[in-house]
């Protein structure tokens, strides 16, 4: 499976309207400016739309950083 990080970074750049934003697997709500609960809703929705997946309630609670998000997306895509 290709590395999803660049694509996820593009989503972040669009959502935050910040062309030079750099995202790593360790990025999380405390070290990315503007990543508040409202932006989180937008991010999750955008990712669900892009990959045509739907996160379950329990899965959403487990996400601690971008790395978790990518792993979860890969898992959901593999299940499809």
């Amino acid at each position, binding site marked *: 499976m290709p590395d999803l990080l660049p694509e996820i970074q593009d989503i972040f750049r669009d959502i935050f*309207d910040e062309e030079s934003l750099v995202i790593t697997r360790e990025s999380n709500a405390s070290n990315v400016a503007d990543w508040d609960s409202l932006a989180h809703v937008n991010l999750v929705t*955008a990712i669900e739309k892009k990959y045509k997946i739907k996160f379950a309630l329990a899965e*959403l609670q487990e996400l601690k950083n971008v790395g978790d998000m990518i792993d979860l997306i890969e898992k959901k895509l593999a299940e499809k």
Partner: protein
Amino acid sequence: MNLHSYSLDELLLKRRGLRRRLLATDGLKEIRIAVLGGTTTNELVDLLELLLLNSGFRPTFYQSDYGRYYEDAVLEPQTIADFQPDLVYVHTCSLNIQSPPPVSCSEDKFGTYVESEMNRFRAVWRSLEANVGCQIIQNNFEPPASALLGNLDAASPGGLSRFIAELNRAVAAEAATNPRLLLQDLNAIAARIGMNQWFDPERWFSYKVANTVEGSFGVATSLNAMIGAMYGRSRKVLVLDLDNTLWGGVIGDDGADKILIGRETPIAEAYTAFQEYCLALRERGILLAVCSKNDESIAKSGFAHPDSVLKLEHFSAFKANWEPKHENILAIAQDLNLGVDSFVFVDDNPAERAIVEGQIPGIAVPDVGSDVSKYASILDARRYFEATSLAKEDLTRAKLYEENAQRAQLEQKFANYGEYLDSLEMTAEIDVFNPTYMERVAQLTNKTNQFNLTTRRYTLAEIESTVSDGRHIGIYGKLTDRFGDNGLISIVLGRVDPNDRSVLHLDLWLMSCRVLKREMEIAMLDAIADRARERGIGTLLGYYLPTAKNGMVKDHYEKLGFSLVSNEQGAGATTWSLDITNYAARSRHIRTMEKVNA
């Protein structure tokens, strides 16, 4: 930039960037909106903001904290009042219902549960009316996420489905009698999307957003249309192509007897249904016009077809020739005295759509495709013709324009214009603002763009306060002639100078274009001067504030004999003065009825 070319996914993803670009647009109208939510409203507000920017508004929002619509409105209304909103939107959903009847509820008790729930909402509206005093939009309720009793849920007094249906009926009854309260039909929005695509339990439990993104977008789209309608920005004219739009086939090639219309084939039925849809629009006040590349007499023969629902007399303008369509549409706009930004153009031909859209800024050209069975639903979904109320004027508008066409024919027969005006046998009723016409007055201030000296918009509440504060003289004019009643068509609002009570500032002077060149403005001047002199006023000060649309009244005050006082208020704004100490009535062609109110 036009948002219509973006998918919802793209809108969500690129929202901040789109917002940044739209905010750079010139001439956006400021609007302040308080959103009181029973759910988290941020996503809805984000989408609404984009749509409003795209419609020419620059919104500023106040949002209640999650779920605090009742507390904010009833217990702490001052916070909202301090925000000074133009509009309060109360966004609640079925999950916010607090006193549903128990399953065991009897038929006798059912009504008390409805009343109890309604009283909570009435308290919200009453408090907003008393403390904030602006327009309120309240949505009704979508069906419940689950129907516990199955089909019985809709019939039993203990069923939530029936309870919600009853609440919706009660909210509609309130909105129908209270002009300050507008109903948003959330129930229909959710139904069109489909309840399974509307409700999203994960989002509800995680973020307290009750519905899907598609749901939020549906609500935002509908709200955008309602706000446009409040400010008179709804579309007024539907311009239609003929071949393969109003009937199947090419009339010039196939002949009038071979076009597809009527009930004989499925395709003919679909064209008939679309014609019926257009006729229904006309009956609620939308003007119809034809713009077709055709020979005029051949084009007209299509409406003589016995199965054609639409007849020639239903069209307020008819252009069938070989000139480019955008030129014809501009000519139609001139004939009807309406701006092209109130036009919607429907054509099955994508090339014609593209050129019209490209050549005429502001016209709406929906991509209707080429399948006639879809035209009506596509037009419906874009909500071009949204109205906040149906005034009597709306229901008779098409007829008025028809009468105008007859007047134009008559005009050609007279030696001089005065003789023509006399032949119209015009009678005016001019009077101070009174409760019967308050709504129409407010409506006119918001939708008149061309004959409008200052283009100041007033809410119903603001108009009402000009009567109660004793510092204003506001008059309306109605005009009847031998062809019919033009309705309430002119308003002049004067404000007594607080420092010099002999001076009246004319804050507003507007007139509907359907009575242009009838000397109604002279009759209005007589009336305002008369009433001003009764109050000891000696000077009228008139103002012209130029906009993109009101060039036609640039010389209004000069023509009425006012003298120029200054033109230094910036780009083209002028101030005019008229001494009325010895004013004598000037109107010669309009008989004015005795005034009823002082």
